[in-house]
């Protein structure tokens, strides 16, 4: 059960300049409230020296803020294998039923070593979804059982009681095109249900295309789509963003004052099963993604926070709280 095989374009692929590939891990420590992400990604035609491999490791510590950073190098400076991307400071690898992630960013007070075993079913988009003038596809694992340690700021954590999530995205798009997406993972402490949201939109987040919300309870999964799924954003997030990489942030100073919603309510139901999730963001990081082959920039907002949920799945009722990460991209 591997979700990680990279989809590098063939040499004669006319859309290779729009190539993207992304291995993504979220870590959510319920005891400390520390939430964050580790991901590695490829942007552009592998044959183009302008194309970039990017590694990101950012963790938010309640009360202390964000730690970590982004590194970007050429493809030839990264080690790219069938299911792994390793940069000097950040690496993610998918091996059979586990994900390995590491980040070594001493200047940014972050050191992470993670090995996380799949503990839930995979979820996969049925087919490639339109994204601007291109497309995106993805697969993910809703819950992983992590092992490892993280040193972030002055805190040192054993991750054995934390939760983790993994997905792999790939496709063809250019940053700056008219698209956006809303995605989120919501994890209470194991063994409670886990929830994943995925919705592709236009840049204004007005038009959407086939939103999907999946609830995972043990080895079972329940998908909610169409009229059975309602998303409501509200409030205004007042947190100050951590914006990386700094050079691109300097170019887009106009995007330093964010107007992002603070709360997301998800109501999903089909007459038999139902889920309600109320997520409230406490912090945000803005990842600025410049396209390597043409002018244009995407703004990936990583909102981290807490959520409450109530669910009835196959007759079993549950409720509780957990930690979540929501991406709001434009």
């Amino acid at each position, binding site marked *: 059960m591997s979700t990680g095989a990279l989809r590098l374009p063939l040499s004669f692929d006319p859309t290779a300049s729009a190539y993207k590939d992304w291995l993504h891990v979220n870590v959510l420590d319920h005891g400390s409230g520390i939430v964050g992400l580790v991901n590695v990604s490829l942007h552009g035609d592998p044959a183009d*020296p*302008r194309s970039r491999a990017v590694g990101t490791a950012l963790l938010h510590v309640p009360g202390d803020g964000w730690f970590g*950073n*982004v590194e*970007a*190098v*050429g493809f030839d400076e990264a080690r790219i294998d069938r299911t792994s991307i390793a940069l000097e400071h950040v690496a993610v690898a998918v091996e059979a039923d586990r994900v390995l992630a590491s980040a070594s960013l001493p*200047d*940014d007070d972050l050191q992470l070593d993670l090995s996380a075993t799949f503990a839930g079913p995979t979820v996969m988009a049925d087919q490639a979804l339109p994204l601007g003038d291109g497309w995106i596809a993805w697969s993910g694992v809703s819950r992983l059982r992590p092992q490892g340690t993280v040193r972030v700021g002055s805190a040192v954590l054993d991750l054995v009681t934390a939760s983790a999530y993994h997905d792999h995205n790939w496709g063809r798009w250019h940053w700056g095109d008219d698209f956006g997406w809303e995605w989120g993972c919501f994890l209470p402490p194991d063994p409670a249900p886990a929830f994943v949201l995925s919705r592709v939109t236009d840049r204004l987040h007005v038009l959407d295309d086939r939103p999907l919300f999946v609830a995972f309870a043990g080895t079972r999964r329940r998908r909610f789509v169409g009229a059975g799924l309602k998303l409501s954003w509200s409030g205004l997030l007042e947190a*100050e963003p*951590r*914006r*990386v*990489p*700094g*050079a*691109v*942030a*300097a*170019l887009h*100073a106009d995007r*330093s004052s964010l107007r992002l919603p603070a709360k997301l309510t998800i109501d999903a139901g089909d007459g038999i099963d139902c889920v309600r999730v109320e997520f409230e963001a406490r912090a945000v990081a803005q990842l600025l993604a*410049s*396209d*390597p*082959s043409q*002018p244009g920039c995407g703004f990936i907002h990583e909102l981290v926070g807490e959520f409450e949920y109530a669910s009835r799945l196959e007759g079993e009722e549950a409720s509780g709280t957990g930690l979540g990460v929501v991406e709001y991209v434009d």
Partner: protein
Amino acid sequence: MRKAVGGRRARIRLDAEAVDVGFDLDERLRVEEPGGEVDGEGATDRNTVLDMLDGYIEVTDAILEGRLAVSGETEDVARMFVALEILLDGSTRIPPLQQLARDFRDDPCRPARGAPKRRSRATAWHPIGDDPAERSVLVRHDLLP
């Protein structure tokens, strides 16, 4: 960039180093020892550059906190910022510029990177023209009416 800066020359200071930059009549970039009159001047230090590259401080914060100083006539300063913007925009698609940033960071002849210094000012909303940080800069440069 040549069109934006025309025949202007600027002096760039980084810590104790300084160079004059400008385009020649044949439109080639010239980097020279400082000397004579220049149209504008920018000054900062190594840690501030790295803090900006690492996203710990924004250009606006650096100016307001006195970590980046730019001087000259209004139009000359505006053109310096246009040149900087072109450079930043190109840096995402020009690998040699990215290598230059890495060489600067890893330069063994320069001091090791200090601990990142985050912005110190609060970012609460203020009415236009009534930001205490902006007022402080204007006072520092004796620019208040």
